[in-house]
């Protein structure tokens, strides 16, 4: 427990406090009065209102479109399911710079909607909402679908035998069992969309602004640290409230459910209804998720002899000190280091949280571990700069800063993946081993490790994928001679000219493939009791 606490204190709480203090302290005195001043501004109130309602709308739309998907992935068997499940998860880990570009091909000018019906949604709120569905589809499919696939279908069948209509059987038997998972997924989606940054900036245009976008503008462009600090505190409070509710639903979810092996619940579709549903879900996935990704690939190939890919190996052009292709190596190395950190910290935290005698404070820490997901990257980045800049921890010049920042985002995923499994380990096994004379370390190695090994691998894979895609904090601290893939893509997009644009598309495709491969390996390792993702 002390390990994760220290990690979060040093690499999260301290930097964030430092940057907030820089904005809100004058002559050593906190200026809390500023909070009321800033929140009272009509412009800021508008931002708060927009942030909230677009997150609610995005969450509702995501549930509407993804819940059928959750059912299909959980209950229907069809060829290519594993591959498709990896594919729908790719958007979740892709950086928004890339996705924004791809998504415009769907809803922007000359995009599919434009070509078919002359409908353009860019710079409307619809583009933002649809992109949020694109990003978060996997959250619902994995969270809800994961549980759904383990629910014993015989319970619903029994209700049908007793004369209930299909709808009634579903409403009275399955829905109550699923409700906590749906609530948890909804809250996760709400959290991600409430703190949305790239999507809103790229697809919404300057007319729309979320709290996160406003924090970025105030910090990075206008240099109004005081306003930024207030907004950070406001976002903190909101995210804290969301997480408290989330933690509560997660606990409720761990009430006893009769779970069965997911492998036995999925069947070939039967009847017109199931076939239609499958077709509908596949069409949604194809249109909303696969098509934008395909556009990226197509544009990356839009040169003779895969010219854009070949250009990635050259150093001329001056944008980089090394050939862009080396960004793959950098990304992989950084992500590996970040994963190592996230797994160690996350596993320690999960182990502490899973103890049956864990008190309220420890369980409260569960929610705190999620906070980095809800704090703006620019706040963390600036915080790192001013907090970790002198001995004993002068890390500003060190490469370790990037994996550390990435690990902050990875830890919540590790904790979420491991907790359910660790909680399921029968405590008596550990006691028995201890009674027989095993040391605590040996108990962990002989009892817990074999049981959680697969969950650990899955957690590591997720942390790895998230680290690969992390952009916001990385761009702040990555060293110029060692750009990661998302950073290199952003830099290429920042220069005019065909070759730069084409290389950006090619590198994005490479990132996509690396992510997809990592996730496919994950699919292979899936156990019947997966975590929440």
């Amino acid at each position: 427990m002390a390990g994760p606490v220290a990690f979060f204190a040093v690499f999260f709480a301290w930097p964030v406090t430092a940057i907030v203090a820089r904005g809100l302290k004058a002559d050593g005195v906190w200026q809390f009065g500023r909070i009321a001043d800033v929140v009272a501004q009509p412009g800021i109130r508008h931002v708060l209102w927009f942030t909230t309602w677009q997150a609610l709308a995005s969450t509702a739309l995501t549930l509407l479109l993804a819940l059928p998907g959750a059912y299909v992935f959980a209950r229907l068997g069809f060829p290519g399911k594993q591959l498709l499940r990896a594919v729908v998860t790719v958007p979740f880990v892709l950086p928004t710079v890339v996705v924004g570009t791809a998504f415009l091909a769907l809803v922007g000018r000359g995009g599919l909607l434009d070509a078919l019906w002359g409908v353009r949604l860019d710079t409307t709120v619809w583009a933002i909402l649809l992109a949020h569905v694109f990003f978060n589809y996997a959250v619902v499919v994995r969270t809800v679908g994961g549980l759904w696939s383990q629910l014993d279908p015989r319970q619903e069948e029994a209700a049908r035998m007793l004369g209930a209509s299909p709808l009634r059987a579903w409403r009275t038997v399955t829905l109550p069992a699923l409700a906590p998972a749906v609530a948890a997924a909804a809250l996760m989606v709400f959290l991600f969309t409430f703190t949305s940054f790239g999507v809103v900036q790229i697809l919404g245009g300057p007319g729309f602004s979320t709290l996160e976008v406003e924090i970025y503008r105030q910090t990075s462009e206008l240099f109004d640290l005081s306003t930024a600090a207030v907004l950070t505190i406001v976002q903190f409070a909101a995210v804290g409230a969301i997480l408290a509710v989330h933690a509560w639903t997660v606990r409720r979810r761990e009430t006893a459910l009769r779970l069965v092996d997911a492998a036995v619940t999925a069947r070939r579709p039967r009847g017109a209804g199931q076939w239609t549903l499958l077709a509908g879900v596949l069409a949604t996935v194809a249109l909303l998720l696969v098509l934008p990704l395909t556009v990226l690939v197509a544009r990356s190939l839009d040169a003779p002899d895969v010219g854009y890919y070949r250009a990635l190996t050259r150093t001329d052009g001056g944008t980089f000190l090394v050939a862009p292709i080396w960004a793959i190596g950098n990304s992989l190395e950084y992500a590996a280091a970040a994963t190592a950190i996230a797994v160690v910290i996350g596993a320690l935290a999960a182990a502490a949280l899973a103890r049956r005698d864990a008190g309220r404070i420890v369980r409260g820490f569960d929610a705190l571990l999620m906070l980095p997901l809800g704090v703006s990257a620019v706040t963390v980045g600036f915080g790192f700069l001013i907090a970790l800049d002198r001995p004993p921890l002068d890390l500003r010049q060190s490469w370790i800063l990037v994996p550390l920042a990435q690990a902050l985002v990875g830890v919540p995923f590790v904790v979420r993946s491991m907790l359910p499994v660790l909680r399921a380990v029968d405590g008596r096994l550990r006691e028995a081993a201890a009674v027989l004379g095993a040391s605590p370390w040996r108990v962990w190695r002989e009892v817990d490790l074999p049981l959680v090994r697969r969950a650990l691998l899955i957690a590591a894979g997720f942390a790895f994928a998230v680290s690969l895609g992390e952009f916001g904090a990385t761009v702040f601290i990555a060293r110029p001679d060692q750009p990661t893939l998302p950073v290199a893509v952003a830099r290429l997009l920042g220069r005019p000219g065909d070759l730069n644009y084409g290389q950006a598309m090619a590198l994005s495709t490479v990132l996509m493939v690396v992510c997809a491969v990592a996730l496919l390996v994950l699919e292979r390792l899936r156990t019947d009791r997966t975590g929440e993702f």
Partner: protein
Amino acid sequence: MHTKTLVAAAVGLGLVTLSACGPTAGKDDKTDQGAAGSKTVTLVSHDSWAVSKDVLKDFEKQSGYKVTVLKDGDAGQAVNKAILTKDHPQGDVLFGVDNTLLSRALDNGLFQPYQAKGSQLIQPQYRADEDKHRVTPIDTGDICVNYDKAYFSKHKLTPPKSFADLAKPAYKNLLVTENAATSSPGLGFLLGSAASYGDQGWEGYWKKLKANGVKVVDSWEQAYDQEFSGSAGGRKAHGDRPLVVSYASSPPAEVIYADPKPKTAPTGVASGTCFRQTEYAGLLSNARNTKGGKALLDFLLSREFQNDMPLNMFVYPVVKGAQVPAEFQKYGPQAKTPQTMAPDRIAANRDQWVKSWTSLVLK
């Protein structure tokens, strides 16, 4: 308390162990860069910084310093970060403060005085802060409206030439520009219009532009790569705005970064819509390696670097006699009468103008 300290130490130890297998293992010698007389000098810059490898090697060989470059996001971010870390800076020299941000940097005491060698060769119109020499001009470039040649020839329409043209009905719904609050070219374009129409007149001009269907997006990437029909990215994204606020050097870039190279640039520059930006470098106030920093500033003004710079960063040199590449002359000659504005006038008005502009154009 004791356990916490122990754990912190353990975490620290873990980090050290980890760092042994990191990407820079073995070649990371930056830990001693704080020491006096260090052989490493660090340049902090924005993402657009670029230099030819052999030119940088030459400097390292001649001066005996090893150069580390830290790219820090866009120009605004780099300056803001430098101000935040002023007492304990990330490097020795900051490059990339332009005239729109110069006052923010100087007012915050970011730089210490140093008159670089060769500064007498700087063309007079680019000089600034001449009594104190806290900054040295390094390069200059124009923010101008670019036009899509194919669109205008297809529609048999003359491309616009001036600020006034852009508000004419013939060019309705054709222009895309960047948010002046978040983008440096967007701000440059606003300042250009203010320089052209004056403190009283620019708001009226923007009312006309708005009525004429100007589109505002948040970033240059968005405007140029997505909305503009003349750029490589914009063509693929089916951009439908043939006018964009970009740089005078963008047309040559469209040629240089094309394979095969076209005979003429696909885009041109509306020569009467330009706003001139100058970028400065300075020795950071608490630089640890001041000697190396001074040598680096001398190098940035040297003939070798000034000649190398244009094709790497797509900007123009500031010293007399430096060579402007032929591609620049051919595909995008520098504007003869660009608008410009003194840094202190920008400083006095920037925030208010951006505020008024935001409520006028975005709301």
